[in-house]
Protein backbone atom coordinates (compact mmCIF):
# COMPACT_ATOMS: atom_id res chain seq x y z
CA UNK A 1 0.00 0.00 0.00
CA UNK A 2 1.02 3.55 -0.51
CA UNK A 3 1.76 5.79 2.44
CA UNK A 4 -1.21 8.04 3.11
CA UNK A 5 0.68 11.23 2.39
CA UNK A 6 1.76 10.13 -1.08
CA UNK A 7 -1.76 8.91 -1.72
CA UNK A 8 -3.13 12.36 -0.93
CA UNK A 9 -0.54 14.23 -2.99
CA UNK A 10 -1.06 12.05 -6.05
CA UNK A 11 -4.80 12.26 -5.55
CA UNK A 12 -4.63 16.04 -5.60
CA UNK A 13 -2.42 16.02 -8.65
CA UNK A 14 -4.77 13.70 -10.46
CA UNK A 15 -7.75 15.79 -9.59
CA UNK A 16 -6.15 18.98 -10.87
CA UNK A 17 -5.22 17.28 -14.11
CA UNK A 18 -8.62 15.69 -14.57
CA UNK A 19 -10.66 18.72 -13.65
CA UNK A 20 -8.37 21.32 -15.11
CA UNK A 21 -9.85 23.99 -12.87
CA UNK A 22 -11.25 27.03 -14.60
CA UNK A 23 -8.59 27.04 -17.28
CA UNK A 24 -8.86 28.15 -20.82
CA UNK A 25 -8.73 25.08 -22.97
CA UNK A 26 -7.81 25.12 -26.59
CA UNK A 27 -10.23 23.21 -28.72
CA UNK A 28 -7.97 22.12 -31.53
CA UNK A 29 -4.70 20.32 -31.08
CA UNK A 30 -1.97 22.21 -32.95
CA UNK A 31 -0.70 20.56 -36.11
CA UNK A 32 2.86 19.28 -35.66
CA UNK A 33 5.51 21.04 -37.70
CA UNK A 34 7.59 19.27 -40.27
CA UNK A 35 10.69 17.61 -38.83
CA UNK A 36 9.54 18.60 -35.40
CA UNK A 37 9.81 16.19 -32.56
CA UNK A 38 11.50 17.47 -29.45
CA UNK A 39 14.33 14.98 -29.43
CA UNK A 40 14.98 14.49 -25.82
CA UNK A 41 18.61 13.57 -26.05
CA UNK A 42 19.92 12.48 -22.72
CA UNK A 43 22.72 14.70 -21.54
CA UNK A 44 25.39 12.98 -19.51
CA UNK A 45 24.25 14.92 -16.50
CA UNK A 46 20.61 14.07 -16.52
CA UNK A 47 19.97 10.36 -16.80
CA UNK A 48 17.59 8.30 -18.87
CA UNK A 49 14.83 9.45 -21.13
CA UNK A 50 11.29 8.19 -21.15
CA UNK A 51 9.28 7.15 -24.15
CA UNK A 52 5.99 8.84 -24.83
CA UNK A 53 2.88 6.79 -24.69
CA UNK A 54 -0.53 7.32 -26.16
CA UNK A 55 -2.12 5.41 -23.33
CA UNK A 56 -3.25 6.99 -20.09
CA UNK A 57 -4.77 10.40 -19.52
CA UNK A 58 -5.64 12.15 -22.73
CA UNK A 59 -4.84 15.70 -21.64
CA UNK A 60 -1.79 17.54 -20.43
CA UNK A 61 -1.44 20.68 -18.42
CA UNK A 62 0.87 23.55 -19.30
CA UNK A 63 1.67 27.04 -18.11
CA UNK A 64 2.13 29.90 -20.58
CA UNK A 65 3.40 33.32 -19.48
CA UNK A 66 1.86 36.63 -20.52
CA UNK A 67 2.54 40.20 -19.37
CA UNK A 68 0.69 42.22 -16.78
CA UNK A 69 -1.00 45.42 -18.00
CA UNK A 70 1.58 47.62 -16.27
CA UNK A 71 4.41 45.95 -18.23
CA UNK A 72 6.24 45.02 -15.04
CA UNK A 73 5.63 41.28 -14.62
CA UNK A 74 4.64 37.97 -16.15
CA UNK A 75 1.72 35.84 -15.02
CA UNK A 76 1.43 32.15 -15.82
CA UNK A 77 -1.83 31.06 -17.41
CA UNK A 78 -2.79 27.40 -17.10
CA UNK A 79 -3.98 25.43 -20.11
CA UNK A 80 -5.26 21.88 -20.42
CA UNK A 81 -4.75 20.58 -23.93
CA UNK A 82 -5.17 17.24 -25.69
CA UNK A 83 -2.10 15.12 -25.12
CA UNK A 84 0.45 14.99 -27.95
CA UNK A 85 4.10 14.18 -28.52
CA UNK A 86 5.27 17.80 -28.81
CA UNK A 87 4.15 19.69 -25.71
CA UNK A 88 6.93 22.32 -25.94
CA UNK A 89 5.75 23.25 -29.41
CA UNK A 90 2.16 23.41 -28.18
CA UNK A 91 3.18 25.75 -25.36
CA UNK A 92 4.98 28.06 -27.82
CA UNK A 93 1.97 28.07 -30.14
CA UNK A 94 -0.26 29.07 -27.23
CA UNK A 95 2.19 31.88 -26.39
CA UNK A 96 2.22 33.09 -30.02
CA UNK A 97 -1.59 32.87 -30.23
CA UNK A 98 -1.86 35.17 -27.21
CA UNK A 99 -4.13 35.30 -24.21
CA UNK A 100 -7.88 35.82 -24.05
CA UNK A 101 -7.60 36.99 -20.46
CA UNK A 102 -8.46 40.73 -20.46
CA UNK A 103 -6.18 41.23 -17.43
CA UNK A 104 -3.10 40.06 -19.31
CA UNK A 105 -1.26 41.19 -22.43
CA UNK A 106 0.24 39.10 -25.22
CA UNK A 107 3.84 40.00 -25.85
CA UNK A 108 4.71 38.22 -29.10
CA UNK A 109 4.73 40.72 -32.02
CA UNK A 110 1.83 40.40 -34.47
CA UNK A 111 2.33 37.97 -37.32
CA UNK A 112 5.14 36.03 -35.60
CA UNK A 113 5.09 32.30 -36.34
CA UNK A 114 6.91 29.49 -34.63
CA UNK A 115 9.10 27.91 -37.32
CA UNK A 116 10.56 25.10 -35.32
CA UNK A 117 11.49 23.97 -31.87
CA UNK A 118 13.95 21.30 -30.88
CA UNK A 119 15.49 20.23 -27.60
CA UNK A 120 19.05 19.03 -27.26
CA UNK A 121 21.10 18.60 -24.09
CA UNK A 122 18.40 20.40 -22.11
CA UNK A 123 18.57 23.46 -24.33
CA UNK A 124 15.45 24.34 -26.31
CA UNK A 125 16.09 26.03 -29.66
CA UNK A 126 12.98 28.09 -30.36
CA UNK A 127 13.00 29.37 -33.92
CA UNK A 128 10.58 32.15 -34.89
CA UNK A 129 9.76 33.92 -38.15
CA UNK A 130 11.36 37.36 -38.67
CA UNK A 131 8.21 39.18 -37.56
CA UNK A 132 9.58 38.63 -34.03
CA UNK A 133 12.11 41.36 -34.86
CA UNK A 134 10.38 43.31 -37.67
CA UNK A 135 7.05 43.74 -35.92
CA UNK A 136 8.56 44.42 -32.52
CA UNK A 137 7.50 47.88 -31.38
CA UNK A 138 10.71 48.54 -29.43
CA UNK A 139 11.22 49.55 -25.83
CA UNK A 140 13.16 47.75 -23.10
CA UNK A 141 10.02 46.82 -21.20
CA UNK A 142 8.55 44.97 -24.19
CA UNK A 143 11.82 43.22 -25.01
CA UNK A 144 12.32 41.99 -21.43
CA UNK A 145 8.78 40.62 -21.24
CA UNK A 146 9.07 39.01 -24.67
CA UNK A 147 12.33 37.19 -23.90
CA UNK A 148 11.26 36.18 -20.39
CA UNK A 149 7.87 34.88 -21.55
CA UNK A 150 9.50 32.57 -24.11
CA UNK A 151 12.17 31.35 -21.68
CA UNK A 152 9.84 30.91 -18.70
CA UNK A 153 7.15 29.11 -20.71
CA UNK A 154 9.67 26.59 -22.05
CA UNK A 155 11.55 26.05 -18.78
CA UNK A 156 8.28 24.89 -17.23
CA UNK A 157 9.17 21.55 -18.87
CA UNK A 158 11.53 19.66 -16.63
CA UNK A 159 13.94 18.58 -19.33
CA UNK A 160 14.35 22.13 -20.66
CA UNK A 161 16.83 24.11 -18.58
CA UNK A 162 17.84 26.81 -21.08
CA UNK A 163 16.43 28.46 -24.17
CA UNK A 164 18.16 29.79 -27.26
CA UNK A 165 15.92 32.19 -29.16
CA UNK A 166 16.38 32.04 -32.94
CA UNK A 167 14.95 33.91 -35.92
CA UNK A 168 14.67 32.38 -39.41
CA UNK A 169 16.94 29.51 -38.37
CA UNK A 170 19.77 31.67 -36.97
CA UNK A 171 20.80 32.70 -33.46
CA UNK A 172 20.19 36.39 -32.84
CA UNK A 173 22.06 38.69 -30.47
CA UNK A 174 19.21 41.06 -29.67
CA UNK A 175 15.55 41.57 -30.63
CA UNK A 176 15.18 45.34 -30.40
CA UNK A 177 18.62 46.59 -29.43
CA UNK A 178 18.68 46.30 -25.64
CA UNK A 179 18.91 42.71 -24.47
CA UNK A 180 21.90 40.47 -25.07
CA UNK A 181 20.40 37.11 -26.05
CA UNK A 182 23.23 35.55 -28.05
CA UNK A 183 23.45 32.51 -25.78
CA UNK A 184 21.03 30.11 -24.11
CA UNK A 185 19.16 31.73 -21.22
CA UNK A 186 17.68 30.25 -18.06
CA UNK A 187 14.49 30.96 -16.24
CA UNK A 188 13.90 34.32 -14.58
CA UNK A 189 11.91 33.86 -11.38
CA UNK A 190 11.88 37.48 -10.24
CA UNK A 191 9.77 38.74 -13.13
CA UNK A 192 6.92 36.36 -12.30
CA UNK A 193 4.17 38.12 -10.35
CA UNK A 194 3.89 36.53 -6.94
Amino acid at each position, binding site marked *: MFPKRIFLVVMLLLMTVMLGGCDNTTQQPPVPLQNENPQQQAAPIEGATVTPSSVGQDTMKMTVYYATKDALNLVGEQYVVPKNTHPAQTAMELLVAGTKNPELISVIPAGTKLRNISVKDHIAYADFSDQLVKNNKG*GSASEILLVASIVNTLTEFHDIKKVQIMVEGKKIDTISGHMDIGEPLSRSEKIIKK
Partner: protein
Amino acid sequence: MLNLRRFRSIFLSLLLFMMFFVPQISMAETLDNNVPDARPAASVPILKSAISLPVAGAATTNQLNSARWLVHKDAVEGTSKLRLVIDTSDPVIVSSTLDGNGPQLVLDIKGAVVGDLDDSITLDGQIAEKVRFIKKDGNNSQAIVDLPAMIDDGDYKVFTLKSDTANKKSFRVVVDINKPVPKVVYNFTPGLRNKVIVIDPGHGGSDPGAIGPNKVQEKTVTLGVAQKVKAMLENAGAKVLMTRQTDVDVYGPNASAVDELKARTIVANNNKADVFVSIHINAFSNPTVGGTATYYYQKSNYDALLATCIQDGLVATGGLQDRGTYPAGFYVIKRTTMPSILAELGFISNPAEEKLLSTYQFQQQMAQGIVQGLDKFFSQAAKRGGGL
Protein backbone atom coordinates in the same frame (compact mmCIF):
# COMPACT_ATOMS: atom_id res chain seq x y z
CA MET B 1 -21.63 10.06 -2.25
CA LEU B 2 -18.63 8.24 -3.57
CA ASN B 3 -17.84 4.77 -2.46
CA LEU B 4 -14.36 5.12 -0.97
CA ARG B 5 -13.15 1.64 -1.82
CA ARG B 6 -14.17 2.01 -5.42
CA PHE B 7 -12.61 5.42 -5.54
CA ARG B 8 -9.38 3.99 -4.25
CA SER B 9 -9.27 1.20 -6.81
CA ILE B 10 -9.89 3.68 -9.64
CA PHE B 11 -7.16 5.82 -8.21
CA LEU B 12 -4.71 2.94 -7.98
CA SER B 13 -5.25 1.90 -11.55
CA LEU B 14 -4.74 5.50 -12.64
CA LEU B 15 -1.60 5.63 -10.58
CA LEU B 16 -0.29 2.52 -12.29
CA PHE B 17 -0.94 4.18 -15.62
CA MET B 18 0.96 7.21 -14.48
CA MET B 19 3.90 5.16 -13.37
CA PHE B 20 4.21 3.22 -16.57
CA PHE B 21 3.17 5.68 -19.20
CA VAL B 22 5.02 8.87 -18.54
CA PRO B 23 4.85 11.43 -21.33
CA GLN B 24 8.06 12.39 -23.04
CA ILE B 25 8.11 15.85 -21.57
CA SER B 26 6.06 16.54 -18.52
CA MET B 27 5.69 19.55 -16.34
CA ALA B 28 8.62 20.36 -14.16
CA GLU B 29 8.98 21.77 -10.76
CA THR B 30 10.14 25.17 -11.83
CA LEU B 31 13.72 26.19 -11.36
CA ASP B 32 13.17 27.55 -7.91
CA ASN B 33 9.89 25.94 -7.06
CA ASN B 34 9.46 24.50 -3.59
CA VAL B 35 12.56 26.28 -2.49
CA PRO B 36 12.47 26.88 1.18
CA ASP B 37 14.47 29.77 2.47
CA ALA B 38 17.63 27.94 3.31
CA ARG B 39 18.45 30.16 6.26
CA PRO B 40 17.32 28.85 9.59
CA ALA B 41 15.96 31.59 11.79
CA ALA B 42 18.25 32.89 14.51
CA SER B 43 21.28 30.72 14.05
CA VAL B 44 24.97 31.26 13.54
CA PRO B 45 25.13 33.63 10.57
CA ILE B 46 27.22 31.46 8.28
CA LEU B 47 25.50 28.16 9.03
CA LYS B 48 22.71 27.19 6.71
CA SER B 49 20.73 24.00 6.87
CA ALA B 50 18.15 22.33 4.72
CA ILE B 51 16.03 19.53 6.07
CA SER B 52 13.67 17.25 4.27
CA LEU B 53 11.55 15.19 6.58
CA PRO B 54 11.95 11.41 6.40
CA VAL B 55 9.20 9.43 4.77
CA ALA B 56 8.17 6.03 6.09
CA GLY B 57 9.19 2.97 4.14
CA ALA B 58 12.80 3.66 3.16
CA ALA B 59 14.19 0.24 2.41
CA THR B 60 17.76 0.53 1.10
CA THR B 61 20.79 2.31 2.52
CA ASN B 62 20.47 5.98 1.76
CA GLN B 63 23.32 7.17 -0.45
CA LEU B 64 24.51 9.95 -2.73
CA ASN B 65 23.81 8.36 -6.11
CA SER B 66 24.85 10.94 -8.68
CA ALA B 67 25.63 14.61 -9.16
CA ARG B 68 25.20 17.01 -12.06
CA TRP B 69 25.65 20.73 -12.59
CA LEU B 70 24.80 23.53 -14.99
CA VAL B 71 25.56 27.23 -15.21
CA HIS B 72 22.36 29.24 -15.58
CA LYS B 73 22.18 32.75 -17.00
CA ASP B 74 19.07 34.59 -15.84
CA ALA B 75 17.02 35.55 -18.91
CA VAL B 76 16.24 39.04 -17.62
CA GLU B 77 19.15 40.02 -15.40
CA GLY B 78 21.93 38.33 -17.34
CA THR B 79 23.57 37.18 -14.10
CA SER B 80 25.03 33.68 -13.82
CA LYS B 81 24.72 31.02 -11.17
CA LEU B 82 26.02 27.49 -10.94
CA ARG B 83 23.49 24.90 -9.83
CA LEU B 84 24.83 21.62 -8.43
CA VAL B 85 22.28 18.84 -7.87
CA ILE B 86 23.11 15.73 -5.84
CA ASP B 87 20.65 12.83 -6.05
CA THR B 88 20.01 10.85 -2.86
CA SER B 89 17.92 7.70 -2.42
CA ASP B 90 16.08 9.11 0.59
CA PRO B 91 15.81 12.40 2.47
CA VAL B 92 18.91 13.85 4.13
CA ILE B 93 19.74 16.70 6.47
CA VAL B 94 22.24 19.18 5.07
CA SER B 95 24.12 22.00 6.74
CA SER B 96 26.68 24.19 5.04
CA THR B 97 29.57 26.44 6.00
CA LEU B 98 32.02 28.60 4.09
CA ASP B 99 35.67 27.94 4.80
CA GLY B 100 37.91 30.85 3.90
CA ASN B 101 41.07 28.76 4.01
CA GLY B 102 39.99 26.64 1.05
CA PRO B 103 38.34 28.76 -0.19
CA GLN B 104 35.50 26.25 -0.14
CA LEU B 105 31.87 25.59 0.60
CA VAL B 106 31.45 22.54 2.85
CA LEU B 107 28.18 20.61 2.90
CA ASP B 108 27.67 18.18 5.77
CA ILE B 109 25.16 15.59 4.61
CA LYS B 110 23.61 13.59 7.44
CA GLY B 111 21.89 10.30 6.71
CA ALA B 112 23.49 9.27 3.41
CA VAL B 113 26.74 7.54 2.51
CA VAL B 114 28.81 8.28 -0.61
CA GLY B 115 27.42 5.97 -3.27
CA ASP B 116 28.62 4.96 -6.69
CA LEU B 117 29.54 8.39 -8.02
CA ASP B 118 32.85 10.01 -8.95
CA ASP B 119 34.86 11.15 -5.92
CA SER B 120 35.53 14.44 -7.65
CA ILE B 121 33.61 16.29 -10.36
CA THR B 122 35.12 19.23 -12.24
CA LEU B 123 32.81 22.25 -12.31
CA ASP B 124 32.83 25.31 -14.60
CA GLY B 125 36.10 26.73 -13.23
CA GLN B 126 34.81 30.30 -12.91
CA ILE B 127 32.10 30.11 -10.28
CA ALA B 128 33.40 26.91 -8.70
CA GLU B 129 36.39 24.64 -9.42
CA LYS B 130 35.25 21.17 -8.38
CA VAL B 131 33.15 19.22 -5.93
CA ARG B 132 34.56 16.33 -3.89
CA PHE B 133 32.54 13.69 -2.04
CA ILE B 134 34.01 12.42 1.19
CA LYS B 135 32.93 9.51 3.41
CA LYS B 136 32.34 10.44 7.04
CA ASP B 137 31.55 8.36 10.12
CA GLY B 138 28.39 6.29 10.13
CA ASN B 139 25.74 7.21 7.60
CA ASN B 140 27.16 10.62 6.88
CA SER B 141 29.08 12.23 4.06
CA GLN B 142 30.50 15.54 2.95
CA ALA B 143 30.49 17.42 -0.33
CA ILE B 144 33.24 20.02 -0.57
CA VAL B 145 32.96 22.63 -3.32
CA ASP B 146 36.31 24.26 -4.10
CA LEU B 147 35.92 27.91 -5.06
CA PRO B 148 38.29 30.18 -7.03
CA ALA B 149 37.90 32.87 -4.35
CA MET B 150 36.02 33.33 -1.12
CA ILE B 151 32.35 34.23 -1.51
CA ASP B 152 29.86 35.90 0.82
CA ASP B 153 27.07 34.23 2.70
CA GLY B 154 24.52 35.82 0.38
CA ASP B 155 26.19 34.40 -2.73
CA TYR B 156 24.95 30.86 -2.24
CA LYS B 157 21.88 28.86 -1.26
CA VAL B 158 21.46 25.21 -0.21
CA PHE B 159 18.14 23.40 -0.10
CA THR B 160 16.63 19.94 -0.56
CA LEU B 161 13.89 18.79 -2.90
CA LYS B 162 11.55 15.86 -2.44
CA SER B 163 11.39 12.99 -4.89
CA ASP B 164 9.14 13.42 -7.89
CA THR B 165 8.23 10.03 -9.30
CA ALA B 166 6.19 11.42 -12.20
CA ASN B 167 9.33 13.11 -13.51
CA LYS B 168 11.70 10.34 -12.41
CA LYS B 169 13.51 12.51 -9.93
CA SER B 170 14.82 11.22 -6.64
CA PHE B 171 15.40 13.21 -3.46
CA ARG B 172 17.87 15.98 -4.19
CA VAL B 173 20.30 18.32 -2.49
CA VAL B 174 20.57 21.54 -4.49
CA VAL B 175 23.39 24.07 -4.23
CA ASP B 176 23.11 27.41 -6.05
CA ILE B 177 26.25 29.54 -6.19
CA ASN B 178 25.93 32.99 -7.72
CA LYS B 179 28.74 34.40 -9.77
CA PRO B 180 30.00 37.01 -7.31
CA VAL B 181 30.13 40.69 -8.25
CA PRO B 182 33.81 41.65 -8.75
CA LYS B 183 35.07 43.78 -5.89
CA VAL B 184 36.34 46.67 -7.99
CA VAL B 185 37.13 49.85 -6.15
CA TYR B 186 37.00 53.14 -8.05
CA ASN B 187 38.59 56.18 -6.51
CA PHE B 188 36.04 58.69 -7.66
CA THR B 189 36.27 62.30 -6.57
CA PRO B 190 33.16 64.41 -5.98
CA GLY B 191 31.92 66.80 -8.68
CA LEU B 192 31.65 66.70 -12.46
CA ARG B 193 34.84 68.60 -13.30
CA ASN B 194 37.29 66.59 -15.48
CA LYS B 195 35.13 63.48 -15.44
CA VAL B 196 35.06 61.52 -18.71
CA ILE B 197 31.39 60.78 -19.39
CA VAL B 198 30.06 58.83 -22.37
CA ILE B 199 26.52 59.65 -23.43
CA ASP B 200 24.82 57.12 -25.71
CA PRO B 201 21.69 58.37 -27.50
CA GLY B 202 19.74 55.16 -28.14
CA HIS B 203 19.12 53.92 -31.72
CA GLY B 204 19.69 56.26 -34.72
CA GLY B 205 20.12 56.26 -38.48
CA SER B 206 18.45 53.23 -40.04
CA ASP B 207 17.07 52.22 -36.62
CA PRO B 208 14.35 54.64 -35.43
CA GLY B 209 13.82 52.77 -32.16
CA ALA B 210 10.25 52.85 -30.85
CA ILE B 211 7.70 55.03 -32.64
CA GLY B 212 4.83 56.76 -30.83
CA PRO B 213 1.15 56.88 -31.85
CA ASN B 214 1.77 60.36 -33.29
CA LYS B 215 4.90 59.21 -35.13
CA VAL B 216 7.52 60.71 -32.80
CA GLN B 217 10.63 58.53 -33.12
CA GLU B 218 12.72 57.37 -30.18
CA LYS B 219 16.02 58.15 -31.94
CA THR B 220 15.05 61.85 -32.24
CA VAL B 221 14.17 62.25 -28.57
CA THR B 222 17.25 60.40 -27.30
CA LEU B 223 19.55 62.58 -29.39
CA GLY B 224 17.74 65.77 -28.30
CA VAL B 225 18.12 64.90 -24.62
CA ALA B 226 21.74 63.70 -25.07
CA GLN B 227 22.79 66.98 -26.70
CA LYS B 228 21.31 68.93 -23.79
CA VAL B 229 23.07 66.66 -21.26
CA LYS B 230 26.35 67.24 -23.14
CA ALA B 231 25.99 71.02 -23.00
CA MET B 232 25.21 71.02 -19.26
CA LEU B 233 28.04 68.63 -18.40
CA GLU B 234 30.57 70.64 -20.42
CA ASN B 235 29.46 73.75 -18.57
CA ALA B 236 30.28 71.91 -15.36
CA GLY B 237 33.78 71.09 -16.65
CA ALA B 238 33.28 67.44 -17.66
CA LYS B 239 34.71 65.85 -20.79
CA VAL B 240 31.78 64.40 -22.77
CA LEU B 241 31.99 61.77 -25.50
CA MET B 242 28.89 61.02 -27.56
CA THR B 243 28.42 57.67 -29.29
CA ARG B 244 26.66 59.66 -32.02
CA GLN B 245 26.21 63.42 -32.56
CA THR B 246 23.69 63.22 -35.40
CA ASP B 247 21.02 60.92 -36.77
CA VAL B 248 23.33 58.10 -37.85
CA ASP B 249 24.06 54.45 -37.20
CA VAL B 250 27.07 54.32 -34.88
CA TYR B 251 28.79 51.40 -36.61
CA GLY B 252 27.55 52.14 -40.10
CA PRO B 253 24.38 51.82 -42.16
CA ASN B 254 22.86 48.34 -42.27
CA ALA B 255 25.29 46.97 -39.71
CA SER B 256 24.16 43.99 -37.69
CA ALA B 257 22.39 44.86 -34.47
CA VAL B 258 25.25 43.48 -32.43
CA ASP B 259 27.95 45.47 -34.30
CA GLU B 260 25.88 48.57 -33.68
CA LEU B 261 25.72 47.90 -29.94
CA LYS B 262 29.39 46.92 -29.76
CA ALA B 263 30.41 50.17 -31.47
CA ARG B 264 28.72 52.09 -28.65
CA THR B 265 30.57 50.19 -25.93
CA ILE B 266 33.90 50.70 -27.72
CA VAL B 267 33.53 54.49 -27.43
CA ALA B 268 33.45 54.11 -23.65
CA ASN B 269 35.94 51.25 -23.25
CA ASN B 270 38.61 52.78 -25.49
CA ASN B 271 38.44 56.20 -23.88
CA LYS B 272 38.68 55.12 -20.25
CA ALA B 273 35.35 56.74 -19.46
CA ASP B 274 34.38 57.15 -15.81
CA VAL B 275 30.73 56.35 -16.50
CA PHE B 276 28.51 55.37 -19.43
CA VAL B 277 24.95 56.68 -19.73
CA SER B 278 22.64 55.25 -22.40
CA ILE B 279 19.45 57.24 -23.08
CA HIS B 280 16.34 55.43 -24.34
CA ILE B 281 12.57 55.83 -24.54
CA ASN B 282 10.37 52.91 -23.57
CA ALA B 283 7.39 51.36 -25.37
CA PHE B 284 4.63 48.87 -24.62
CA SER B 285 1.48 47.73 -26.36
CA ASN B 286 -0.75 49.14 -23.60
CA PRO B 287 -0.82 52.94 -24.27
CA THR B 288 -1.75 53.79 -20.69
CA VAL B 289 1.58 52.53 -19.33
CA GLY B 290 4.00 55.35 -18.56
CA GLY B 291 6.87 56.41 -16.33
CA THR B 292 10.63 56.43 -15.93
CA ALA B 293 12.84 53.40 -15.27
CA THR B 294 16.62 52.96 -15.06
CA TYR B 295 18.43 49.69 -15.74
CA TYR B 296 21.87 48.54 -14.62
CA TYR B 297 24.00 45.42 -14.88
CA GLN B 298 25.78 44.61 -11.65
CA LYS B 299 29.37 44.20 -12.78
CA SER B 300 30.69 46.30 -9.90
CA ASN B 301 29.22 47.70 -6.72
CA TYR B 302 28.77 51.09 -8.37
CA ASP B 303 26.30 50.28 -11.15
CA ALA B 304 23.23 50.09 -8.92
CA LEU B 305 24.27 53.32 -7.18
CA LEU B 306 24.58 55.10 -10.53
CA ALA B 307 21.13 53.80 -11.55
CA THR B 308 19.52 54.99 -8.29
CA CYS B 309 21.10 58.45 -8.53
CA ILE B 310 20.02 58.97 -12.14
CA GLN B 311 16.54 57.53 -11.59
CA ASP B 312 16.04 59.87 -8.60
CA GLY B 313 17.24 62.83 -10.68
CA LEU B 314 14.92 61.99 -13.59
CA VAL B 315 11.88 61.51 -11.36
CA ALA B 316 12.61 64.76 -9.51
CA THR B 317 12.94 66.91 -12.64
CA GLY B 318 10.59 65.09 -15.03
CA GLY B 319 7.84 64.22 -12.58
CA LEU B 320 6.73 61.06 -14.41
CA GLN B 321 5.77 57.87 -12.58
CA ASP B 322 8.74 56.28 -10.81
CA ARG B 323 8.97 52.72 -12.14
CA GLY B 324 12.20 52.12 -10.24
CA THR B 325 15.62 50.66 -11.05
CA TYR B 326 16.14 47.11 -12.32
CA PRO B 327 19.05 44.80 -13.07
CA ALA B 328 19.00 43.81 -16.75
CA GLY B 329 21.28 41.95 -19.13
CA PHE B 330 21.37 44.73 -21.72
CA TYR B 331 24.29 44.61 -24.12
CA VAL B 332 25.63 48.15 -23.72
CA ILE B 333 25.63 48.15 -19.93
CA LYS B 334 26.93 44.59 -19.68
CA ARG B 335 29.86 45.05 -22.03
CA THR B 336 31.11 48.45 -20.95
CA THR B 337 33.81 48.15 -18.32
CA MET B 338 32.89 51.18 -16.17
CA PRO B 339 29.73 51.85 -14.10
CA SER B 340 26.91 52.11 -16.66
CA ILE B 341 23.17 52.62 -16.83
CA LEU B 342 20.43 52.62 -19.45
CA ALA B 343 17.68 55.10 -18.66
CA GLU B 344 14.21 54.74 -20.19
CA LEU B 345 12.97 58.31 -19.76
CA GLY B 346 9.29 57.68 -20.48
CA PHE B 347 6.96 55.72 -22.77
CA ILE B 348 6.69 56.91 -26.36
CA SER B 349 3.71 54.55 -26.69
CA ASN B 350 1.84 56.69 -24.15
CA PRO B 351 0.34 59.65 -26.10
CA ALA B 352 0.76 62.15 -23.25
CA GLU B 353 4.38 61.18 -22.64
CA GLU B 354 5.12 61.09 -26.37
CA LYS B 355 3.94 64.69 -26.61
CA LEU B 356 5.99 65.77 -23.58
CA LEU B 357 9.13 64.00 -24.75
CA SER B 358 9.04 65.82 -28.08
CA THR B 359 9.16 69.27 -26.43
CA TYR B 360 12.36 71.28 -25.88
CA GLN B 361 11.27 72.15 -22.34
CA PHE B 362 10.73 68.56 -21.20
CA GLN B 363 13.92 67.33 -22.87
CA GLN B 364 15.75 70.07 -20.95
CA GLN B 365 14.15 68.85 -17.68
CA MET B 366 15.17 65.24 -18.37
CA ALA B 367 18.72 66.33 -19.21
CA GLN B 368 18.79 68.28 -15.94
CA GLY B 369 17.72 65.13 -14.10
CA ILE B 370 20.55 63.08 -15.63
CA VAL B 371 23.13 65.76 -14.78
CA GLN B 372 21.89 66.06 -11.19
CA GLY B 373 21.99 62.28 -10.90
CA LEU B 374 25.59 62.15 -12.17
CA ASP B 375 26.66 64.85 -9.72
CA LYS B 376 25.02 62.97 -6.85
CA PHE B 377 26.65 59.73 -8.01
CA PHE B 378 30.19 61.14 -7.95
CA SER B 379 29.75 62.64 -4.49
CA GLN B 380 28.29 59.39 -3.10
CA ALA B 381 30.83 57.17 -4.89
CA ALA B 382 33.65 59.35 -3.50
CA LYS B 383 32.43 58.61 0.03
CA ARG B 384 32.59 54.87 -0.60
CA GLY B 385 35.78 53.15 0.36
CA GLY B 386 36.72 49.64 -0.64
CA GLY B 387 34.48 47.86 1.84
CA LEU B 388 31.18 48.15 0.00
